[in-house]
């Protein structure tokens, strides 16, 4: 955003936008940290059902977690492509990443619907409250990520992204990997480790 800052020396040598992205992600750590803390505080304290053990389908969620993990791989490949100046490959990998992300969102939408049919709602109990808000905010982050990827993809079709613009892909990638890592934590705490 700073005019032409990409070409200029900064005091630290790190591009302004990249530094800002790292700071943003640091801030996001506190955001998800607070949400996760609330989830953990209330874990196992619901007064009424449905309880997580009645609902969680670990094989299904494992698959969607795997899909999201794979999207990080394709994101890496997209960045590697544009750094080599290969716009075509970058477009392919960006599209792959966006599609994988969209599949994850679809999986989450399916899961939410299933849980809702089983009687878990935002107001049902503490589990419903903390589960939907935590995973919902994560899902919102993935959705925004997909929109950013699609915007970049569209932009690249208009010729807006060349080798020297690889920072744009890198920034999107940083965000995408962060959201991915958050999911690993959520998946572990919310799905894999169940209260006794």
């Amino acid at each position: 955003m700073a005019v032409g800052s990409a070409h200029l020396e900064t005091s630290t040598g790190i591009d302004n936008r990249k530094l800002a992205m790292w700071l943003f992600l640091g801030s996001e750590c506190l955001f998800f940290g607070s949400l996760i803390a609330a989830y953990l505080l209330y874990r196992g304290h619901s007064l009424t059902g449905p309880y997580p053990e009645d609902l969680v389908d670990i094989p299904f969620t494992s698959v969607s977690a795997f899909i999201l993990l794979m999207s990080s791989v394709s994101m890496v490949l997209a960045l590697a492509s544009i750094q080599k100046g290969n716009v075509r490959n970058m477009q392919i990998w960006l599209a792959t990443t966006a599609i994988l992300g969209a599949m994850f969102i679809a999986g989450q939408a399916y899961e939410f619907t299933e849980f809702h049919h089983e009687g878990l709602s935002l107001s049902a109990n503490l589990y419903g409250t903390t589960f939907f808000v935590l995973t919902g905010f994560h899902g919102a982050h993935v959705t925004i990520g997909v929109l950013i990827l699609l915007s970049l993809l569209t932009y690249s079709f208009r010729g807006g992204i060349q080798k020297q613009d690889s920072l744009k892909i890198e920034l999107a990638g940083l965000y995408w990997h962060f959201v991915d890592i958050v999911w690993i934590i959520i998946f572990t705490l919310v799905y894999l480790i169940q209260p006794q």
Partner: protein
Amino acid sequence: MATIAAPRTSPLAESLRNARQAAEHNPILSWFATVDHKRIGVLYGVSAFIFFCIGGCEALLMRAQLAGPNANVLTNDEFNRLFTMHGTTMVFLVVMPLSNAFFNLMVPLMIGSRDVAFPRLNAFSYWTFIAGALFLNASFFTRNIFSGDLGAPDGGWFGYAPLNLRAYTPGHGMDFWMLGIQILGIASLAGGFNFIVTILNMRAPGMTLFRMPVFIWMTLVTSFLIIFAMPVIAVALFELTFDRLFGANFFNPAAGANPLLWQHMFWLFGHPEVYILILPAFGIVSEILPVFARKPLFGYPFVVFSGIAIGFMSWGVWVHHMYTTGLGTVANSAFGISTILIAVPTGVKIFNWMGTLWGGSIRFKAPMMFAIGTVAMFTIGGLSGVLHSMVPSDYQQQDTYFVVAHFHYVLFGGAIFALFAGIYYWFPKFTGKFLNERLGHINFWLMLIGFNLTFFPMHISGLLGMPRRIYTYPSDYGWNLWNLLSSIGAFTIALSVLIFIINFLWSIRKGKPASADPWDGRTLEWTIPSPPPHYNFAEIPIVHSRDDFWHRKYQEDAQGNVVPVLAGAAHAPTLSGGDGHGADHDDHGGHGIHLPSPSFMPLIAALGFPFIATGLIYDYALVPVGVTLLVVGFYGWALEPAAEEEA
């Protein structure tokens, strides 16, 4: 994502460009599209000052009600809404944005930069702030204000659960409160990211971290506190939003929720927030004392490191707001000790400021009076803070007027006094005129006396057992005299603010002209003309030492006396060419300096927030409108060129 330059010009881009160019030359429109950090600083400052007056009037109403026992100036309902708004306003709409005004005005000038790292993000921060502030204050009108029903929030600025739930605070006041603060948080975050990047990345050559003015250091620490504290309150407010609007159970005891979750999150944000409010003030004082004592800041590294230490320690003291909630002996002991210890770095600052005065040649100009007032009043506030850290005796003082006295000494005596000092100090830089000195002194003494008259008696009324947040009190509790004194003091403060306003309005037109360096300053902002040109520095300076400008003006002779450098030799060394903003040409008189173009996109995007918030409360149909504004704003922002091509 906002960095994409338009690859080709379309008719739409062409017309947008024309609109922006037209705006640049329109005296009113240009303010709505400005991305100049100095103008945004002025916008922040003026807005915050208006809210200071509003919050002050709320306080005056409350003081009128409390002037005597069993008074009937306000009803219980009105009083509760006013103290909620007074607290929220003073924290989020006054001290934070007023500090932000100084960040905006001063950071680029003091580090030798032409702008902040992200000028449009800066504009976005301001417009989001003003959107949130107006939204919050709009809550007054959610009931029929003309028949005397204030609709403002009534859950206290701390909004404790479960009182903050619909069951206990029906009406939309608290909805406006939670969504309003959420919007204001976005504004603060945007500013926080911007200033960290600006300070770390856009320093002039030679301006190493330990040559930075202390105000810049404090801005940096504050900005880090903002970006880490704001997400915590954001989550708490989101959870409250889900509870109030969508029936979630985060704070609902009936579903087994723990109401203390809110307090933990609120104060985990809230204590760093206290330092977000006071550290900029420390920075301002640390700039002013050396200039008017004509002596460097005593122990610069200690002042800087104590500021950093405060930043870290502020994360480990939040439970001292919760001593009486029954967390138990272990928690109370641990947080009692950590709270005691945070007094150490704060004390270091006070001692170092005194060391700065010692052996100085003190000039008692209005900025200096306010700065010294800050040190003195903050000392009292800090000491009563130590008294509060004594857990068992705090069981007696928690939620009494003793606390009210304490934090007003810190936040009014500390922050507001320092912000006034900053206004008197830097006013000449941005207007080319002095504020009237005589009125300034009257302003100071009236404020000092009024302030102490208002808040010192509150120590007594608190120790005599008067709780906070009560709209009335019986006449036989021994509180009458102290409350009367407080009320008289409050109106004295109002008079002093009135004098300040008169001074400001008069001086801005007829004030004594000020030179580029009217106070014999030490830092880079005094090397450029008053008011500064829009590009700040015609040539980017090269910095050789801390207090660089002073060393260009003075040197030590053989006997160790400080003598002026011979005239003419004081010419500033500068860096031609590469300047952090892409000027490729020799830039005399600012020609050839590329500055970011004005933009309406931050304003458009920021307008989305109040639409979304109003929609959530009243009618979901407004939500898509707000989202559309956001999306249009952000995409426009990303696609429009940040600066015009050289025509």
